[in-house]
């Protein structure tokens, strides 16, 4: 009997003493800190600091502006890869409000968000690429900025993809390469 009780005690004791190496005296990301006044172990970046290699010296690339005017040419080469990346990022960050075609009827808008202007209006179709980059970076009216969520290179990928969406609105079957027509034509139907 006492042996059984002893074992049970051993079991309980050894279960209880797991914490020593579990919580080592070091900080994990976003952990609470008893040392700093704001209780954040992940320290905010001091204003004006520049990480090595991340100096924003290319104003065209980093602001989309030259002399306070939005640039009209993409600062990066437009490749099929860039467009694919842009599509993926657009679907993550923009579709909730702007919807998959950019007409501004996304799920969040249907739940009460202000309805954004469609990308297919004359004003936005003719807006320069730098303007879209600026909206993502600094926000616009009721839309908050996405600079913390999206890297500059990805912002340009999204801008390029917005151009694809705009072009697609006026697309016809004649724009499709002949060898791919069969893959989009509905079976038995006509376009």
């Amino acid at each position, binding site marked *: 009997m006492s042996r059984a009780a002893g074992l049970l005690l051993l079991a309980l004791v050894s279960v209880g003493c*797991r914490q020593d*190496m579990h919580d080592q005296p070091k900080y*994990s990301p*976003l952990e609470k800190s008893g040392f700093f006044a704001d209780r954040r172990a992940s320290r905010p970046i001091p204003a004006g600091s520049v990480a090595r290699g991340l100096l924003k010296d290319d104003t065209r690339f980093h602001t989309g502006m030259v002399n306070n005017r939005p640039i009209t040419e993409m600062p990066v080469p437009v490749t099929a890869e860039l467009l694919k990346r842009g599509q993926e990022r657009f679907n993550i960050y923009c579709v*909730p409000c702007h919807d998959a075609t950019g007409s501004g009827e996304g799920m*969040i808008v249907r739940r009460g*968000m202000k309805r954004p202007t469609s990308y297919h209006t004359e004003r936005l179709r003719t807006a320069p690429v730098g303007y879209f980059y600026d909206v993502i970076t600094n926000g616009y009216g009721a839309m908050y900025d996405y600079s*913390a969520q999206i890297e500059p290179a990805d912002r340009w990928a999204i801008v390029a993809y917005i151009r694809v969406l705009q072009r697609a609105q006026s697309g016809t079957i004649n724009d499709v390469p002949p060898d791919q027509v069969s893959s989009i034509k509905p079976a038995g139907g006509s376009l």
Partner: protein
Amino acid sequence: MAQVFHYSTNTLARASVVIALVLVGGGLWILLAIGRTSYITQQEVVREQPVPFSHSHHVGGLGIDCRYCHTSVENAAFANVPPTKTCMNCHSQIWTGAPMLEPVRSSFRTGESLEWTRVHDLPDYVYFNHSIHLKKGVGCETCHGRVDQMPLMFQQNSLLMEWCLDCHRNPQQYVRPREELFTMGYKPPNGNQAALGEKLVADYKIQSLTSCSVCHR
């Protein structure tokens, strides 16, 4: 001189060896079993949060991608929990009067952090990295379960070493194509994981990593 021990004590002596073994073995078994209970692993224990944030509404209902909030999960060890500003992208306009969201609004006004309660927490002596798992085709759902059906977050799996190793020994049973990493309710084509798994392990050059220093470094 008369015999001190009766003949039957021979049997008793043998039996006591067996009983001792059973007790020691049973004790060890109890130890291991206790270590696997959800009391220790915190499996499926729902946590109180400062705001009752629902993945089931935001992911399942509204269809928001994991990466909208957990932005660093593809590139870093740590899958970040979103800052208050991310919530305000929408909640500056949606449910602006809801008392439930007051902690979010006051955090945005004052700049103080929202203090979410951690749900998954490996011991500090284990190294874990999200990005490698995504690059090699392990989806969120495989480890975190049907997040899109969780009104409040809980830990789907035990996170015990045996759980990690089960997959590290046989990754082909769990991997999926990279396009499906964020899909919830994913099913392999034709239900044939065996064939797909073999192919992906070859395509993504997936190794079976079981040496101790992979996770204990």
